[in-house]
């Protein structure tokens, strides 16, 4: 089981790598780290403490901390949606904290609720219900994407919001189409 100290160290290391700081308010920070730990325990991955997760990694990949939206949010608002990662200006109190609007597209937000619809319909048929849930997760078709700027390759349903290596924008990603040809 991950300890709170490990969650803290992981976040600190990540903040250092990207030139960010963790939230300067000790109580607020503690709450966020506890939230991350709780999510890691119940979902087995540290999904964003301030967003409702579906519990299925296929549907929650973009909100596993640090989420896809962190870098653009720190750039535009000085901190991520939860306020875990902040810019130097916010950390040093030079810039006022502003509310960070949700950048995650609504189609992805509602994924946390989709299994509920299936459950309602198939309530009486437990077996079918389980199958439906699995099917829902597998409906998210994964593809290979590469960053045209640095060559980073990733296998997921959608290209990342920002390249984690060179920070290129989403538009720089292109899909790698795999073609298998049989000859002879």
């Amino acid at each position, binding site marked *: 089981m991950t300890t709170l100290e490990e969650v803290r160290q992981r976040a600190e290391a990540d903040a250092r790598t990207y030139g960010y700081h963790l939230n300067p308010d000790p109580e607020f920070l503690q709450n966020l780290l506890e939230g991350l730990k709780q999510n890691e325990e119940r979902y087995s991955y540290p999904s964003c403490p301030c*967003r409702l997760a579906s519990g299925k990694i296929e549907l929650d990949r973009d909100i596993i901390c640090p989420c896809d939206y962190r870098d653009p949010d720190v750039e535009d608002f000085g901190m991520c949606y939860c306020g875990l990662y902040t810019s130097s200006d916010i950390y040093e109190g030079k810039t006022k904290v502003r509310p960070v609007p949700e950048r995650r597209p609504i189609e992805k937000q509602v994924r946390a609720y989709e299994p509920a619809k299936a459950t309602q319909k198939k309530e009486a048929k437990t077996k079918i219900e389980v199958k439906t849930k699995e099917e829902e997760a597998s409906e998210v078709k994964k593809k290979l994407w590469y960053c045209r700027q640095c060559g980073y390759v990733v296998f997921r349903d959608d290209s990342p919001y920002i390249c984690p290596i060179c920070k290129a924008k989403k538009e720089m990603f292109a899909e790698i189409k795999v073609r298998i040809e049989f000859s002879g």
Partner: protein
Amino acid sequence: MEFSKVSGQNNEHKVVLYALNTCAWCKMTKKYLKDNNVEYEFIDVDLCTPKEKEKIREHIMSKGGSPVYPTVIVDNKILITGFRKDKLEETLGI
């Protein structure tokens, strides 16, 4: 669906908070309402059943909001998205 009730002297309005158990902004909202003696009800949506979650999503979206947390609904008509002290102050007369 079980809402928890927090009593307070400032009880002119019906205040309902939709929160997540893990969310720091939701904790701030709970603390802010309590510190200002506001009577309110809350539910931690992440701890609800799938059916309840779906009902909550429908309810918030029917009021013109998005399913993000914290969401505060005052008197069943004014919707406040996120922890917005300014809007809470204005709406609740704090």
